[in-house]
C-alpha cells in the first residue's frame, strides 16, 4: 500500500499540497483541449496554405545552384521562395540565445552573441535534415511536399565529422570556420573560459589525498520526443503578424519576431494554447521556421501553416558529453580535490551547448561543492555535423550527474565506505554547515525504501544468482536542485493579476504556456489558499489557459521547473491587495476604518463587534458590480537560501547470458521545500522515469557513420519505454529545506530524471561487478563488459 507524503508540521494548509486531479483533467480526459494543430485546421482558416522547407540530404554541403521552376509550375503551388530572395538576405544572422530559458532579451542582449551561426534561410547545411535553400507555400501538404521534391539543387558536398574528438583534431572539416578554426567554441562572457572554475589548488589537493580516483562517462544524444510535433501558423496578411505556435514561451517569441522582422511589438501577436509536452525542446531562435513561415504569409497574403512530421521533429536533443572526472580524498573520506573536464558534442549549431556544459555545472559547484576546498571545472563545446544539442529536461545536470555519482561510488568502494556516508560527509551547500539536512534525509529515506542494507552486495557481482543467469544489485545517485527562487533572479519581474467578480468568483491571470507540468493546478491551489479568507474553493477560480500577448500579462516561461511556485509567491502578494481593496470598499458600508475590519470565510466584520458585518458577496453586489482587480509585477526574491537535494535509488536484475538489464524498482525522492500539488508532483516523479530509464537503457540516436545520415528519427527505432517496460516506482515527497517566501517551494520536474541513469548504472555494477559508463546500456555493452562478446 502506497502512503501519502507527510506535510511539514503545523503547515495548516487548506489547498496547497493536496492530492487531487489537475484542473484540466476532465477536459484532457475527454479529448476536449485544443493543441496548436487542432486550432489551425483548414476549417478554421479556409484560405490556409501549407509550408514545407528543403532539407539537406548531406551532413555538410553548400548549395551551388538552385532551380525552382519545376516546383513553381506544379498546380496548387502558390509561391516558392529561396535564400537568394531579398526577404531572407536582409535578415540578421541569429542563434538560440534569444533566451537563457527564462527571460526575454533583445537581439543585442541575447546569449552566445559571438556565435550567430544560424540563418533564417541560407545556402549552407551542416547536418542532414538542416532546413536550407527554399520554402514552398501550397494548397495542401502533399502538394508542398511534391514541390520540394521538384526543386533542383546542385550541392557542393564537403567532408563531415560526427565525433567531437575527431572534430578537434587538426585537419578536421570545419563546421563554422567563421567562428572557430578548430571546431571548439571559443570562450565567451556567459560561460567563461575553458577552465571556468578554479577554486583553491586542485593539484595540491590531489597531492595531499590518500586516495585518488579517475574515470570517464559518456552521455548521448537523447531527444525530447514531445508527441506534439513542432507546428505554427502565421497570419501576416496585413500590417499585423499573428503567430499560433506550440512553443513554450509567448512573450519571447513576440520579441524574437519583432526584432528579427523589425516590427513594433504591438503589431505582433503570439497565441499559445495547450502544448503536448515540451521537455526543454528548442528555444526561441533555433526555430527559424516561425520566420520563413511569416515570409510566406506576407508574400502570398494567406495564413500559412508549417508543421513538422515526426521525423522532422527530431530537431533538438540533449547535449551529449564525454566527462572525465578525478577525485582525491583522505582515508577518512574527506574529499580534498575535485576535477571535471568535459567535451561536448554541440552538433551543427551552438544553441545552448555552453549552458549545459558550463552554466549548469557551475550552479552545482556553487552549492554542492561549497565544502570542498579545491575544485576545477573545464569544458570544450565542439561543433560537429550532428543534430544540434540544446535544452532538454535536466539540462547539463543529467550529464554531470553521470560522472559525479560515478566517482562517489568508485571512491567509496576504494575507501571501503558506504557511498551514502561519503555523500553526507562531503556535500552540502554554501549557506549551511555539514551534514546537510536535506541531503541526509533523502538518502536515508531512499536507502530504507529500496532496502539498501539488505539488498546491496557487499562485494559487487558476488550476490546470489537468480534463475540460473540473473544477478541483482542496487545503486543510487543524488543531486542538488537548481530551482530555488534565488536561482531564478534572471527572470526579473513576474506579473500576476486577480479579478474578483461580484459573485465572489475569481479570474486568475498567471500566464504560462500549459505544457503539462502541473503549474496551472499549483497556481489555482496557491490562489485558493491565498484567498481562503473569501471562503472559496478551487472551483470558484478560473485560470486562463491560453496565452495571448495582446490580452495576457507576460507569460512566466515554462522552464526550470519553477513556474509553479514562482507565480504562486506573487499570487500571495496580489491576494493581499485584493483583501485591502475589499476592506476599503466595506468602510462606508460598515462605517469603520479598514484597519478595524477583517475577513474570515467570506464575511467582513468589525473586529471589536463581530455582529457588525456583511458577506463579501453582498458587499460586491452593491453598487456598480465592478469587479475588484489587483495586479502585481514583482522581482524574484534573491535571498540566498541554499538548495534542497533529490536522489534516485534503483534495483536492477541483469541477465548475464543475454546482457539484458531489467530495472525492478525505482525510488524517486525530492525534497520540495513545500509540496504545492502532491498528485502533480508525484506525476512528475513517476513520469520522469520514462525519460530517465529510456536514456539509461534504450533511447539513442544512431547515425550512419559513412554518410552522416541519422537512421532512427522515428518512434519505432528510437525506443521510448512503454507501460510494459516500466518497473514499480515509489515517489517520495519531502519537506525538509525551505526557500524564501510564503511557500518556499522548489521546482522538481527536471530533477526527477537527472539521477536515474547513474542510479541504474551503479546498481548494474553492484549486480555484476563490472562497470559500464557509456549510456545507453544496451545488452551488447553488458556482454562486452562481462567478456562474453
Amino acid at each position, binding site marked *: 500500500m502506497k502512503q501519502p507524503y507527510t506535510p511539514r508540521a503545523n503547515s495548516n494548509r487548506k489547498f496547497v499540497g493536496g492530492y487531487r486531479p489537475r484542473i484540466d483533467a476532465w477536459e484532457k480526459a475527454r479529448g476536449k483541449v485544443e493543441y496548436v494543430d487542432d486550432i489551425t485546421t483548414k476549417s478554421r482558416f479556409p484560405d490556409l496554405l501549407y509550408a514545407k522547407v528543403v532539407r539537406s540530404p548531406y551532413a555538410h554541403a553548400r548549395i551551388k545552384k538552385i532551380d525552382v521552376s519545376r516546383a513553381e509550375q506544379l498546380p496548387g503551388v502558390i509561391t516558392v521562395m529561396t535564400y537568394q530572395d531579398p526577404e531572407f538576405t536582409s535578415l540578421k544572422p541569429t542563434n538560440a540565445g534569444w533566451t537563457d530559458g527564462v527571460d526575454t532579451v533583445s537581439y543585442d542582449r541575447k546569449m552566445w552573441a559571438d556565435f550567430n551561426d544560424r540563418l533564417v534561410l541560407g545556402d549552407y547545411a551542416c547536418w542532414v535534415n538542416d532546413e536550407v535553400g527554399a520554402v514552398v507555400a501550397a494548397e495542401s501538404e502533399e502538394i508542398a511536399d511534391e514541390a520540394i521534391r521538384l526543386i533542383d539543387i546542385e550541392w557542393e558536398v564537403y567532408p563531415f565529422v560526427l565525433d567531437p574528438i575527431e572534430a578537434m583534431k587538426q585537419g578536421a572539416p570545419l563546421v563554422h570556420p567563421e567562428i572557430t578554426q578548430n571546431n571548439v567554441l571559443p570562450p565567451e562572457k556567459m560561460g567563461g573560459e575553458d577552465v571556468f572554475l578554479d577554486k583553491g589548488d586542485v593539484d595540491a589537493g590531489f597531492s595531499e589525498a590518500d586516495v585518488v580516483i579517475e574515470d570517464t562517462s559518456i552521455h548521448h544524444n537523447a531527444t525530447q520526443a514531445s508527441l506534439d510535433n513542432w507546428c505554427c501558423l502565421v497570419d501576416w496578411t496585413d500590417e499585423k503578424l499573428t503567430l499560433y505556435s506550440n512553443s513554450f514561451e509567448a512573450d519571447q517569441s513576440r520579441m524574437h519576431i519583432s526584432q528579427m522582422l523589425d516590427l513594433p511589438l504591438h503589431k505582433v501577436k503570439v497565441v499559445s494554447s495547450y502544448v503536448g509536452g515540451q521537455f526543454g525542446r528548442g528555444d526561441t531562435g533555433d526555430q527559424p521556421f516561425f520566420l520563413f513561415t511569416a515570409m510566406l504569409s506576407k508574400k502570398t497574403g494567406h495564413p500559412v501553416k508549417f508543421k513538422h512530421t515526426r521525423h522532422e521533429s527530431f530537431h533538438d536533443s540533449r547535449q551529449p558529453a564525454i566527462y572525465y572526472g578525478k577525485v582525491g580524498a583522505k582515508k577518512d573520506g574527506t574529499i580534498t580535490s575535485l576535477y571535471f573536464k568535459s567535451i561536448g558534442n554541440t552538433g551543427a549549431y551552438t544553441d545552448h551547448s555552453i549552458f549545459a556544459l558550463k552554466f549548469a555545472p557551475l550552479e552545482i559547484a556553487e552549492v554542492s561543492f561549497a565544502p570542498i576546498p579545491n575544485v576545477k571545472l573545464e569544458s570544450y563545446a565542439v561543433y560537429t555535423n550532428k543534430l544540434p544539442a540544446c535544452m532538454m529536461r535536466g539540462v547539463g545536470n543529467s550529464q554531470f550527474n553521470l560522472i559525479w555519482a560515478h566517482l562517489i561510488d568508485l571512491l567509496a568502494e576504494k575507501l571501503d565506505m558506504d557511498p551514502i556516508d561519503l555523500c553526507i560527509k562531503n556535500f552540502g551547500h554554501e549557506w549551511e554547515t555539514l551534514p546537510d539536512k536535506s541531503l541526509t534525509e533523502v538518502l536515508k529515506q531512499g536507502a530504507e525504501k529500496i532496502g539498501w542494507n539488505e539488498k546491496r552486495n557487499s562485494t559487487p557481482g558476488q550476490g546470489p544468482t537468480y534463475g540460473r543467469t540473473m544477478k541483482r544489485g542496487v545503486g543510487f545517485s543524488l543531486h542538488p536542485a537548481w530551482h530555488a527562487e534565488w536561482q531564478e533572479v534572471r527572470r526579473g519581474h513576474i506579473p500576476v493579476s486577480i479579478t474578483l467578480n461580484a459573485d465572489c468568483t475569481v479570474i486568475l491571470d498567471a500566464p504560462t504556456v500549459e505544457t503539462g507540468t502541473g503549474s496551472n493546478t499549483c497556481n489555482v491551489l496557491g490562489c485558493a489558499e491565498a484567498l481562503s479568507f473569501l471562503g472559496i474553493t478551487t472551483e470558484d477560480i478560473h485560470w486562463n489557459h491560453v496565452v495571448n500577448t495582446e490580452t495576457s500579462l507576460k507569460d512566466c516561461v515554462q522552464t526550470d521547473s519553477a513556474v509553479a511556485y514562482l507565480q504562486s509567491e506573487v499570487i500571495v502578494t496580489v491576494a493581499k491587495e485584493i483583501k485591502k481593496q475589499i476592506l476599503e470598499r466595506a468602510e462606508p458600508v460598515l462605517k469603520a476604518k479598514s484597519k478595524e475590519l477583517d475577513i474570515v470565510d467570506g464575511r467582513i466584520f468589525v473586529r471589536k463587534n463581530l455582529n457588525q458585518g456583511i458577506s463579501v458577496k453582498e458587499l460586491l453586489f452593491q453598487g456598480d458590480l465592478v469587479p475588484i482587480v489587483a495586479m502585481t509585477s514583482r522581482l524574484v526574491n534573491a535571498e540566498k537560501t541554499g538548495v534542497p537535494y533529490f536522489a534516485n535509488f534503483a534495483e536492477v536484475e541483469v541477465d548475464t547470458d543475454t546482457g539484458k538489464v531489467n530495472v525492478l524498482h525505482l525510488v524517486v525522492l525530492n525534497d520540495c521545500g513545500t509540496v504545492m500539488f502532491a498528485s502533480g508532483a508525484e506525476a512528475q516523479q513517476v513520469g520522469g*522515469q520514462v525519460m530517465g530509464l529510456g536514456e539509461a537503457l534504450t533511447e539513442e540516436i544512431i547515425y550512419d557513420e559513412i554518410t552522416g545520415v541519422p537512421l532512427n528519427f522515428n518512434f519505432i527505432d528510437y525506443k521510448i519505454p512503454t507501460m510494459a517496460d*516500466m518497473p514499480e516506482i515509489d515517489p517520495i515527497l519531502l519537506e525538509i529545506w525551505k526557500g524564501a517566501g510564503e511557500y518556499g517551494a522548489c521546482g522538481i520536474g527536471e530533477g526527477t530524471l537527472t539521477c536515474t541513469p547513474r542510479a541504474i548504472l551503479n546498481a548494474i555494477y553492484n549486480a555484476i561487478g563490472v562497470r559500464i559508463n557509456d549510456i545507453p546500456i544496451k545488452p551488447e555493452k553488458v556482454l562486452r563488459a562481462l567478456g562474453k562478446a
Partner: protein
Amino acid sequence: MPKSSKGTQEIYATPPSGIKIKINGCWHNFEAERDITPTMTLSYLLREKLGYTGLKVSCDEGACGACTVIMDGKPVLSCMILAVEANGHEITTIEGLQKDDPVVEAFAEQCEPGYGTALQCGICTPGFVMSTKALLDENPLPTMDEVKEALSGHICRCGCYAGIAQAVMHASEKIANKGDES
C-alpha cells in the same frame, strides 16, 4: 461497442462511388475521389475533413497510439487505416463517449497517492482512453499484466503509465459497480 442511436440516417441506396462510414452513431456519406482520395488515411479524414480533433496524429506510422479510435469494437490506429477501408464500418472517436463515461472519469480523477495523475500534457490521453474503452468492453476485469499488454502500444512521454494503469483499474471497478446497481 458504439451504440447505434435512434434516428440514425441509414443509407440503403449507396451509389457505386459512395463510401459510407458510421461515426459516433451517425452514418456519413462520402464520394470517392471528391471527399476521400485513395491515399487518405482515416485519421486525416476524421481530423481535417470532419473536425474530430480529439484524436492526435503524432508519429503517423503506427508507433505511438495517439490516433487510436474504435472500429467495430476494436481499437485501431487511424493513421494506419485508409479512409476507404472504413467503408461500411462503425467508428467511435473520443467525441463519441459520454461525458460520464467511466473510463473518462477514471482518467480524470486519478490522484491516488503514490502513482501520480493519469495525464499531464494530455496529448496521448484520447488514445489511451479509447484503447482502455475497447479493453474493458472485451475484458471488464483485466489483471495488471493484461492492462500493460493492452496499452503497451501507446507512448506517454510525460510518463504517466503508473497513473494510467490505476485509472484503468478504477474504471474497471466503476463499470462493475454500475453493473451491480442495474
